[in-house]
């Protein structure tokens, strides 16, 4: 089942009158099905974050449409967009983006609290998700009191707790050491399998990308290539390295 359909999206920074226009995305089109774990790869500056922000409706495309749940998201007004985000999208950011005024627990329940759910429902969901993701013990700590990996796991809980249609992750392993990074990737895979969550992950790390089922490569704002994971993980990994070496992204 199709969850997201992107049609001819372009993004030009620098306004109409501005002399130094910059085309960040050019005529991008693709689809994402329910339950997919899609990777977006590309060199630094290729437009990955721009794409993700547009999909997350934080940013607007200059032209083109993208359709989610049968609705053209670009036509929504500001408050409808906010509602759309809280209902349909879960974000995981490179720098976690947890509020340091709140405990991990408060951070995690924030989207549900904003949606106005009842306490018992909130606690029930919180309990299940934090147990699955293994952070029940540190829930009452503040973000600056725990490690980066734990913060990112809390961020994942926050993204997941509303059962969003799609989880958008922008270089989630970017700030983590390799062990925590691996843990998080396994967690995402687990979420993808167990929760049937659809995930779109931006990364320029080949190892991270190898966890995906499908990878879209972006170069200079255009889709350059796509790769599907086969049964052989090693082979998938090698082919990613090949594409990346052409694109000029650094592999780890």
């Amino acid at each position: 089942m199709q969850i997201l359909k992107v049609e001819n999206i372009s993004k030009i920074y620098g306004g109409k009158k501005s002399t130094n226009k910059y085309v960040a995305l050019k005529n991008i089109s693709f689809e994402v099905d329910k339950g997919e774990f899609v990777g977006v790869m590309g060199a630094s500056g290729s437009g990955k974050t721009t794409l993700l922000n547009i999909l997350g409706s934080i940013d607007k495309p200059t032209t083109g449409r993208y359709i989610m749940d049968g609705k053209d998201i670009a036509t929504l007004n500001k408050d409808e967009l906010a509602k759309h985000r809280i209902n349909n999208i879960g974000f995981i950011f490179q720098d976690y983006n947890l509020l340091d005024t709140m405990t991990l627990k408060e951070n995690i329940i924030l989207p549900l609290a904003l949606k106005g759910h009842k306490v018992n429902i909130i606690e029930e969901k919180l309990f299940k998700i934090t147990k699955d993701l293994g952070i029940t013990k540190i829930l009452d700590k503040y973000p600056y009191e725990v490690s980066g990996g734990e913060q990112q796991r809390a961020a994942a809980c926050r993204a997941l707790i509303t059962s969003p249609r799609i989880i958008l992750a922008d270089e989630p392993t970017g700030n983590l050491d390799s062990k925590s990074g691996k843990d998080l990737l396994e967690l995402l895979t687990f979420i993808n399998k167990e929760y049937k969550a659809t995930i779109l992950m931006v990364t320029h790390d080949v190892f991270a990308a190898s966890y995906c089922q499908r990878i879209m490569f972006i170069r200079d704002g255009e889709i350059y290539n796509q790769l599907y994971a086969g049964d052989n993980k090693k082979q998938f990994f090698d082919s990613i390295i090949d594409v990346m070496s052409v694109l000029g992204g650094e592999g780890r």
Partner: protein
Amino acid sequence: MKLTTLAIRNIKRNFQKYIMHFFSLSFSVFTAYSFLALMQNEYVITAFTYSTRYRAMLKGFGIIIMVFVIFFLISSNKSFIRARKKEISTYALFGMTNRNIGKLLFLETMIVGFAALIIGIGLGIFFSKLVAMILLDISLASFTGDIAFTIDPKAIYLTIIIFISIFGVMGLSGLQVINKFQLVDLFKADKVSEGKSGGSKISLIISLMLIGTGYYLASLDDPLTVVGVSIPVLILVILGTYLFFWGGLPEVLSFIKRNKSSYYRGINLISTSAFSHRMRSIGSTMATIAILSAVATTAIATGFTLYKNIEKNTYDIIGYDMYFYGGQEKILDDIYRAFEKHHTKIIEEYTTQRYITSPQMEKIVVDDSRYIYDETDYFRVYSQSVYNKLVSLSKSDLKPVHINSNEAMYVSPYIFEELDEAVVGQLLTFSDQTIKITSTLRSGIVSFGALRTLVLNDNDFERLLQSGDILGVNKNGIPYDKVTIFNYENPLKSRALDNELTRILSGNVGSYRTAYNHYNESLETFGLICFIGFFMSMVFILMTASLLYFKQVMAAEEERHHYRMLRKIGMDSQVEKRVIVKRLLPVFLIPLLIGITHSIFAMKAADTIVFSNMIPLENSYIIVLAFSAVMYSAYALVYGIFYFITKGQYSRIVK
């Protein structure tokens, strides 16, 4: 001169932040100049400073203001520097020494300070005439004149000297803040610095107990005790307030957090956690502001109540625009001529005979001292109808009375509860009649010099006069002086008439009083107190409110990324608005409410000590509160305005 260029560029770039800093600096300069110019103003000097008492009062007030200005400037300077922590750490990262950073900030302070000096003194000069006229107008009833516009070089010179030294201190305290910064702070941003504010039940309970005890002591009934405990009360309440903000309020917040069904609403979750996160850095400021608000509201409410009651108090004591006894034959014609000369219409005139009586009665002893009666004592005595006539002519609130036969009312300026109990029921034995005192009244109006007065039923009075118990003549058979009262137009404003009346009366009558005299003496003292109260309150209100503004705007810079993140996860603009309201309102509301509550109890003490004597009503405290409420509302209004300015600015920054 690279530092200077950098300094100027920084000011330009940080203009938004600097504008408020600039405002507070200019306002401080304005305050100082206005005050100094006031002290030099020749009208003010002739009106007040001839008296050492007034001069001391003005000086003391000046010192309080200056201390406060210094506190305010240093603390706003520190939070200003802290808000620029990142920028400063960046300089350090690029290898600038602390000395040079200090120099840079000092230069910036001096440039902005110099501009503030010019603006502040300019405003001061512009408004100096107004300030002096306000002081003279509220302190001198007869002040109608225009005063000359003056520029005071001495005040300018003093202001400049004072502020250059203050800027020096600010620079040094800034350097101290910089030295405390660690380079790592740059990378950790503000995460660790604030942390959880540790509340505890114990500190909440202790703080409430301290404040409660203070309140209890302040509302005791005995004036002398209240005066005696005033210092302990101050200490209790101040300690309690700080403890409340340091440990009590965080506990209240964590209590709120434990109520999940309300805390887990998005808005409450965001605003409460953000507010409690700020608690530690803003707690002391809020406590200080609560206490300053209490001082300011109390000062202004006291001044206002005193001021508003001067006229009433005058008539409660004097009763009429003028009265005198004795010498009528000699001077009445002169008096009529004086009124004619000053084109003043006489509204009421009444003359009556005065009588005394000395019945037999028990000695009444209260608190080991004799209060009522001795063989040598006498009562002034009125018949009910003469008393009612006098009362109806008076400008006080006294009501006419009805006295049954064989009963009497006892009137004295000095009556308190125990005496009242002791006097009521006493029997007065006359030659062939006994009369019982059935009521008392605290008033000095109808006594005209006597300490104790009786009011009798008309028939009783007539009978006792016949029987010789009531006498209109003294031992030598000479009649007692008659008393004459006058009410006339414009009694409190016409200085020339009063001077002439005083000249006619003094030395020629038994005794006399005029409302004008009493009113103007009170006005001079209370008007000055009132002016000081207003001036101080204005300074306190504006400075505390702008300090709060300042802190919140600085906080907004840091909280900006929270809002950006919240928007990403789907906070809509309605929710955002409400979050901002809930985040900012407590910052203004809590200190204001605590300050006003403190002040309500302070006014209770002031009522016990001062007002209950001034306002001859059962419940003078209610009146005092009513007057105070006017000033509390004004205070709240200014805070409200600042709250909205802050909200606007905060919303703009986090957008």
